[in-house]
């Protein structure tokens, strides 16, 4: 038998399984090949040592700094612009359309206290607890259309986008990112970090528009309390941060999110209370259930934030996490679960394609 080539000897050093059995058997019993193999190994070791001299220091490369440099260079080099966030935001939006996650997202609504106070707004609500509100899936998936009752002006851009690491996420949102102590079985790897900025939505009640909508629906409008026209309620969303572990298919397997807990403000004419506005809105015919159900539990003076969940698809229960009362959600098919709680004005959510014990375990282990 001819001696195997130098290439075969070389591969034997790195990938013995890639060398044919007959070649391995020959080399093992051939003095010529054994001596040649030693030369090949020696050369490989020397070259490896020489080439690797600098490589040890690459273990601590500053990934965040390198990424910033790259995005800056890309933005400055002509028409090309880094828009890596776009598909992730799209995927997140798709995820948010799922009823359970939509409920979780609703819990992340926050109010910009500074801006509100400056405009003469009065705080009417600050979240200290969360409670699920059951709504039919059809109503929940339908975007609440408030245009029949007034104007909704959305300002700001959530700009949900990935950031490189936890430090960048914390710097951008000002929130302490929870650290997961032990990942549940089936979840592995490093998370992606998503952050979102502040968005505000201001609803201004219009008596005229409400009357028109009622007339078109053939309904009789209840007489509005005096001075209600022009009443405003403001919600401001964000900032928030999420750590997302994904399966290879792009499906999130674990999400740990944190946001400043919701607060609500109103700016009402003299003599009109938020309760007056709320009661009147609830008395309106054809008010979308997705609006009505949270509104029923959204009491001024209350501190429990309603989280819409789809009726018949999600079971709810309560537990405690870090000594705080927490709400546990689980889909009927047990494919997803979530636990959320409020502590020191910050709402934290652990959700994923896990069972309830697993999300609670992750929640308890957060540092």
């Amino acid at each position, binding site marked *: 038998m001819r001696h195997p080539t130098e290439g075969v000897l070389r591969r034997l050093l790195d990938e013995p399984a890639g060398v044919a059995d007959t070649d391995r058997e020959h080399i093992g019993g051939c003095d010529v090949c054994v001596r040649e193999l030693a030369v090949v190994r020696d050369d490989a070791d020397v070259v490896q040592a020489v*080439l690797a001299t600098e490589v040890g220091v690459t273990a601590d490369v500053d990934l965040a700094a390198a990424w910033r440099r790259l995005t800056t260079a*890309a933005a400055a080099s002509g028409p090309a612009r880094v828009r890596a966030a*776009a598909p992730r935001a799209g995927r997140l939006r798709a995820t948010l359309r799922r009823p359970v996650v939509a409920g979780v997202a609703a819990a992340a609504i926050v109010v910009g206290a500074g801006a509100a106070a400056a405009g003469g707004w009065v705080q009417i609500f600050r979240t200290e607890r969360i409670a699920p509100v059951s709504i039919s899936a059809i109503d929940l998936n339908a975007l609440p259309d408030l245009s029949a009752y007034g104007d909704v002006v959305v300002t700001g851009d959530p700009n949900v986008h990935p950031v490189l690491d936890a430090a960048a996420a914390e710097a951008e949102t000002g929130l302490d990112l929870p650290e997961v102590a032990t990942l549940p079985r089936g979840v592995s790897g490093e998370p992606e970090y998503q952050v979102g900025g502040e968005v505000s939505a201001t609803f201004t009640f219009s008596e005229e528009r409400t009357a028109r909508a009622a007339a078109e629906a053939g309904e009789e409008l209840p007489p509005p309390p005096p001075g209600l026209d022009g009443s405003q309620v403001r919600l401001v969303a964000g900032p928030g941060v999420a750590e997302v572990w994904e399966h290879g298919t792009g499906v999130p397997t674990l999400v740990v999110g944190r946001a400043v807990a919701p607060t609500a403000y109103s700016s009402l004419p003299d003599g009109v209370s938020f309760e007056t506005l709320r009661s009147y809105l609830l008395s309106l015919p054809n008010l979308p259930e997705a609006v009505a159900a949270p509104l029923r539990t959204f009491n001024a003076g209350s501190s429990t934030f309603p989280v819409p969940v789809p009726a018949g698809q999600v079971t709810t229960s309560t537990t405690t996490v870090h000594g705080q009362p927490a709400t546990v959600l689980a889909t009927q098919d047990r494919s997803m679960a979530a636990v959320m709680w409020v502590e020191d004005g910050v709402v934290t959510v652990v959700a994923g394609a896990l069972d309830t014990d697993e999300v609670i375990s992750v929640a308890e282990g957060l540092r």
Partner: protein
Amino acid sequence: MEVVQHPRPAAAAVPPTLAGVAGGRDVRADLDEVFRCHYQLVVGVAARVLGSRDQAEDVAQDVFLSFGRSSVPLGEARGWLSVAAAHTALNLIRSRRRRVSREGIVAADGDAVVSDVAEAVVTAEERSRVRTALARLPRQQAVALVLRHSGLSYAEVAAALALSPGSVGTTVRRAESALRKELNRHASSD
């Protein structure tokens, strides 16, 4: 320490078969994901060629900019980036943009564990010789060598360079033999 600024790689800086896909289009959406997964690998490939982490990171920047404007399939990113890094780094040596003295400066910066200054100088000279010899090798040999020593499997090297897996060992072996001879030649003349 001198900071060497490299121009953005022209078409010649990436493999000819890859040059056509890099253009002035928008940066691809998966760049951040690819960057996080492969940045350290790309720096490692370039560092093996150049012997300098700073220069290797410069090369990595250029490589990822090129990749960001390419339409290389995600599944081929690892191989593409590695080959592009090796070519770009080898071009730097070949074009003599890099100052030989930088080797010594980098070595003295503490990247290598050396017992004294004399040993550091010898080590720097040796590495400089190896890298000069590396740039003189047939390009495919040099790239295959660097990719293999950077951790790519034989199958990955073969796919990245359009070689048969069976010929990767031969290509790598020839490159190592040539470099060893270069080291021995200088060692015997010292």
